[in-house]
């Protein structure tokens, strides 16, 4: 009994250390998924609290597991809470940009376009191009096949290509997302 209690105390210390050291990085992923700071914090705390109950099994390498919970919770929460989210079809008029602000504005447009992707495609884009996970790691995180990851990524890039906000920029440039 004493040993068990000691193990639990040690688990708690490890868990708290993980929360302290890694949660800010996970919060960035949560934000890219939700594009809402408050919801991202909510999502992160929920994922961490779920992870605690499996901590003894995952403490040797907890981050992939927590990230998996984060993404899957995001998917289910999207259904429960955020299904009122609607992409805006009324895009604001494009401002006249000087060179200094153009890059930031373009990145904002692209980030907004990513935010208009379906949740699963958005998750694949974030995991592949922000978290830099491989296709296999992305598949393991999402609980699907690598073929599904490829297809979702292809579909996501296809949607970004024709996103109205980005299409306007491409009128002034050549090339496309490859």
């Amino acid at each position, binding site marked *: 009994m004493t040993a068990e209690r000691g193990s639990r105390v040690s688990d708690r210390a490890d868990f*708290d250390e993980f*929360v*302290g050291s890694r*949660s*800010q990085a996970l919060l*960035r*992923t949560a*934000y*890219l998924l939700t*594009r809402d*700071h408050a919801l*991202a*914090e909510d999502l*992160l*705390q*929920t994922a961490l*609290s*779920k992870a*605690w*109950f*499996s901590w003894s099994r995952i403490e040797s390498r907890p981050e992939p597991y927590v990230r998996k*919970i984060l993404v899957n*919770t995001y998917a289910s929460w*999207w*259904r*429960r809470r955020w*299904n009122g989210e609607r992409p805006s079809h009324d895009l604001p008029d494009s401002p006249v940009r000087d060179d200094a602000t153009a890059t*930031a504005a*373009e*990145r904002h*447009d*692209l*980030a907004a376009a*990513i935010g208009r992707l*379906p*949740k699963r495609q958005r998750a694949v*884009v*974030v995991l592949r*191009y*922000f978290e830099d996970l491989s296709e296999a790691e992305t598949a393991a995180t*999402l609980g*699907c*096949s690598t*073929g*599904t990851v490829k*297809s*979702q990524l*292809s*579909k996501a890039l*296809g*949607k*970004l*290509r*024709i996103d109205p906000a*980005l299409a306007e920029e*491409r009128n002034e*440039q050549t090339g*496309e*997302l*490859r």
Partner: protein
Amino acid sequence: MNTIDDLRAALAADAATVAHDEHPARAAGVQGRIRTRRRRRQAGLAAAAAAVAAVVGFGVLPALDDGPAPNDELEVAGHVVPREVRILDFPYRFETSAESEPGEGHVELDLPASGAARAVTVAVDDLPPGSTAALRLDGVLLARVVGPSRLDDPFPIGDDGTLTLTVTGGSGDTRVGLATYERTADLAPGLADTSGTVVFRDRVAGKPRLGAVFARPGAAEASFTVTGRLTDIDVARHCDSNGAPGVYFVMSIDDGATESGRCRDVDDEDPAGGGYVSSGGTESGRHEVRIWTTDRLYGEEVVAFPGTVLGAAAYGSSAGTVVRGAEVPEVIERDGRLWQLEDAVGRRHRLDDLDGPRVLGMVPGPDGAWLEIREDLGPVRTSDGLAGGAGAHAINDVVWPGRSYELSLVDVDGDPAAGAILVYRPMQG
């Protein structure tokens, strides 16, 4: 803003808007949630908290929660329900379930919009003879089940709404329940496009796929060859414009345009399930099926539209049953099920003591007909009319067990009309 590097940069810039310092209340917030989850687990309510659906007043069986799915069996109203099912070969994963207490006779399940297709199965136990359990979505009848003990086949439903399952005439031992499933991201076996969002299934309504093709990304046309007699070949097509306006497709067989139409921004993952056409030809041998995008109906010029998903498939067309000169299919797909022709009868027919649902159709006489369905405890329904003519037939209506039905073919005035009534029953397995 044109490369993957730009995409990475945009994500990094967006992520950089997150504060660098840890939220001061995070650790306390996490511990508070852990305590809450622990209490729920101890109370045996963890699944209720995680379930997508909110259940009003009834027990909820474990839904998929945090971490890997357990391997224990799921039971609903005394029946073991599978964690995964296939509907027309498309995979669905268990989402949630609900069941009544014995004798309670009512289950209600609220399904918020999910963005994914859903399916439902009904389980009943100790349902006395003459009793029924009726499943409704937002008040619209989806199914009626009879006992005494049955786990019905799952079938697709809309992606949100309130499901109610209500027993009429049950006993104190009667238990009913339902389980819902959600489509996974995987497709049915078949030929899929490169993005994996649409598939020509290996078999549709029992018919094998003989050939299929999807245009390469960026290409505006594709073709394949198929061998056989044209009367034995049906073709299906898919054209998703992905939002681009003014996109049309043309599909041809052996240089003869078979079908043309506007490509839409559709989310149809199963184009062949939506129907197919025949060329009308009779020639045997090797045939080329070709599809291309263009800028007008039946346009001959191939015009590329970036982002368009384009494909075609051919299926074997097995001989149907000839009823009053019309060839009607032996096997059909409807509501996520395969149905087999059970009966082709005259202009009047009665259905009693059904053990399951039936799909009804008709072959009208030369002057056309309507199918009138008189339910012993319900309203009179009349199907859409169908003009008579060579090969004309229609398969429109579903009836459920627990009622008797008087079927008759009538004319526009409600007077008897010539023709034959078709009855299809669910195929087993």
